[in-house]
């Protein structure tokens, strides 16, 4: 991990309210693992004061220019405009100076052998799944992406997954794209068909809670990527902790999302506490 004082290569709106930003980051791709994240400093002036965490969508190289210079290495994030920080980000342009700390945290535990893998993404939760999909395809896994959102605007980058060789299934709450309904309905069907599949999920907490219920019932292995507000991203502030499985007041277990996570094996988390702290009214 490193603090990059760097600049933006491009910043484009890819769907209403969703942006894709490419940032120059030499040496980044060989270090970055699927599921890791970056802390992004929006601007040097205040506010906002704190950096914002973003999942890494992918890393790569721009094709070499005809001037014969070495190809430029970039990291790409996809973000949704939700507040002050992301609103400022949406206004940034090519060449603007930014700071990027990363790659940070523990990513997905990528299985070593081939087999059925199901990725479940809810809205912006799709982001960390793209690099994972690439890795899994490389390992010879059969990969399916179940992508859910409120409306068609929340369905992102599906064709890019298809280009990797991933089978994709889209569902929206309002039926404006793909199947009408929740992504978890699709998951239940797929798990009936592929009972030995392993599941990887990222999305809003109510979705993660539902995915975890289904996986519990089917005895399916599940890894989830969590999002928590954090100040430092390196395990110092202890602001982003979640309760681990078996947490009690006498024997507390607080895990830093930034350091132990953001990806956790589902069995290591206290799901009741997660549901409560994210106001989704209980998982069990």
């Amino acid at each position: 991990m490193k603090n990059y004082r760097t600049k933006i290569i491009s910043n484009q709106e890819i769907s209403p309210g969703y942006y894709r930003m490419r940032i120059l980051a030499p040496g980044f791709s060989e270090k970055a693992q699927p599921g890791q994240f970056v802390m992004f400093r929006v601007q040097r002036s205040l506010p906002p004061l704190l950096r914002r965490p973003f999942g890494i969508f992918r890393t790569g190289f721009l094709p070499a220019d005809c001037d014969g210079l070495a190809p430029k290495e970039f990291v790409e994030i996809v973000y949704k405009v939700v507040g002050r920080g992301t609103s400022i980000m949406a206004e940034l342009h090519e060449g603007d100076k930014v700071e990027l700390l990363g790659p940070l945290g523990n990513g997905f535990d990528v299985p070593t052998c081939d087999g059925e893998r199901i990725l479940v993404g809810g809205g912006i939760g799709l982001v960390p799944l793209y690099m994972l999909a690439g890795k899994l395809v490389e390992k010879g896994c059969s990969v399916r992406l179940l992508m859910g959102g409120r409306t068609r605007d929340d369905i992102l980058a599906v064709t890019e997954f298809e280009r990797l060789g991933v089978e994709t299934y889209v569902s929206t709450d309002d039926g404006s794209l793909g199947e009408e309904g929740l992504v978890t309905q699709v998951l239940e069907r797929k798990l009936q068909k592929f009972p030995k599949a392993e599941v990887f999920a990222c999305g809003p907490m109510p979705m993660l809670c539902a995915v975890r219920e289904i996986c519990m019932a089917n005895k399916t292995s599940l890894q989830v990527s969590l999002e928590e507000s954090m100040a430092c991203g390196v395990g110092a502030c202890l602001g982003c902790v979640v309760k681990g499985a078996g947490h009690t007041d006498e024997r507390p277990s607080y895990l830093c999302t930034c350091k132990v996570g953001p990806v956790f094996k589902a069995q290591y988390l206290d799901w009741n506490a997660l549901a409560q702290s994210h106001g989704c009214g209980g998982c069990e």
Partner: protein
Amino acid sequence: MSETTKTTVKKPNMVVEIAGIKLRNPVMPASGTFGYGEEYASFLNLENIGAIVTKGLSLKPKAGNPTPRIAETISGMLNAIGLQNVGIDAFIQHKMPFLRTVNTPVIANFFGNTLEEYGEVAKRLNDIPEIAAGELNISCPNVKQGGIVFGTDPKAASEVVAQVRKNLQKPLIVKLTPNVTDITVVARAVEEAGADAISCINTITGMSVDIHTRKPRIANRTGGLSGPAIRPIAVRMVHQVVQTVSVPVIGIGGISRPMDALEFLIVGAKAVQVGTANFVDPSVMQTIIDGIEAFCIDEGIEDIHELIGSLKL
């Protein structure tokens, strides 16, 4: 004709002494914003900063507060971490081996739930030769016991400092809270009870509400405000304390740029601690050290002591 000899810029002396500990420069992290040092080793040469200050340590491990624990506010942040820490035993076993490899004084910040516990932790610190000094926390606003209860009452503060002084065979720094009517009263009490230095200020109690859910933005309801927003309050209080006591004062509160640190030095702080800014820029202390040095060179200052307490009134 001008001299042809190259004039080399003379670097200013940045060494300061706090309670008998020599620091290579007056810049160190504030407890709780720098983990146990190791977290920042990839971003900053730990042998360039004046000292390392640990996360607050207690006799037993401490779980900390429920979440959410942090919320950003205008030019600041609220936190109510609740002194989560590994406990003194795990600190010695798991954190000291790394800290031993770093040639920089380590200051152990510590606290207890009771008067006796404060004394016990102090005793345990004696067993660690590499700990240069203890920083006694009587100012955490986010826990019921072990913090602000001692720091807001001059009599209680005096008692706990005396208890620790009796047990700690190392220099003792006492960290004060700003959440009092008159910080000079507590400062005088802890000096009389045996503090070798005073650090101030800890965070200022604050609150923020989510207008849509109408809930407090942190689970503890209130939290400690830190960051650039509190700096003028901190400068004022450090100034007041410097005017009151004769022990050295370490200035803390919203420092994120060299000029911020200089402000504290000018009002009389012998050293400074950088807190929230470490979260924003993990190498910010290096920037601050370099900036102080550059300022001294520009102003023709050969020794940092020419600057410390040079406030013109």
